[in-house]
């Protein structure tokens, strides 16, 4: 298991290749990558991501450990950035390796659902019209109910 919280960009291709290569007896590798979209409110100048140092690492570790208890996984990777990002930049990624694809897919979805609503990150969008904190979506909270 590897949990990374950093402001620097990460190399999705290198991380994915390295993760998959490290688990040659896992038949299935799933990755999810979150990318900064343009704002619904208009042209995004910057997305600022604030986090809670210390709690962030604890929360991500707890979520990843929970995934490892629920599914038969060879490994879990979580990388999440904070700081100022621009349109098209990668915010975060998770990767799961498992013998069977069902475990790899479900664990990756579980990680994403919990990371959305239970890891202490807050996004703020800055556009030409001003700056606004991104509101949590009811559907993200609802998504936890299925686990």
């Amino acid at each position, binding site marked *: 298991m590897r949990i990374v919280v950093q402001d620097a960009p990460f190399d999705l291709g290198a991380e994915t290749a390295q993760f998959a290569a490290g688990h040659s007896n896992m038949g299935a590798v799933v990755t999810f990558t979150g990318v900064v979209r343009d704002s619904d409110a208009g042209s995004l100048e910057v997305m600022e991501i*604030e986090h809670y140092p210390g709690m962030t690492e604890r929360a991500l570790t707890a979520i990843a450990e929970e995934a490892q208890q629920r599914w038969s996984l060879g490994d879990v990777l979580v990388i999440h950035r904070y700081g100022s990002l621009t349109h098209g930049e990668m915010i*975060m990624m998770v990767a799961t390796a498992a013998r069977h694809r069902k475990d790899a897919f479900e664990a990756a979805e579980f990680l994403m659902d919990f990371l959305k609503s*239970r*890891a*202490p*990150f*807050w996004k703020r969008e800055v556009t030409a019209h001003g700056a606004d904190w991104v*509101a*949590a979506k009811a559907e993200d909270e609802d998504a936890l109910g299925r686990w």
Partner: protein
Amino acid sequence: MNVLYFAWVRERIGLPREEVQSEAATVSELVDELVAREARYAAAFADRSALRVAIDQELSDFDAPLAGVREVAFFPPMTGG
């Protein structure tokens, strides 16, 4: 104890953390004390249902006791991922 604020809670209160001396037995009582202090706290805590609380870096709730607690954090619902 250390009290931390994040996102718009931090903005309304005007600082990211402060040391608070309090005999409050629960998180709710601590918030009551803060709200009684100044308008900026009242503004931040106007709708407690819109807030989340963490105690010693674990998600908790407003009824939680504060005995032995070193760090309390207040913030809006999280938007990671």
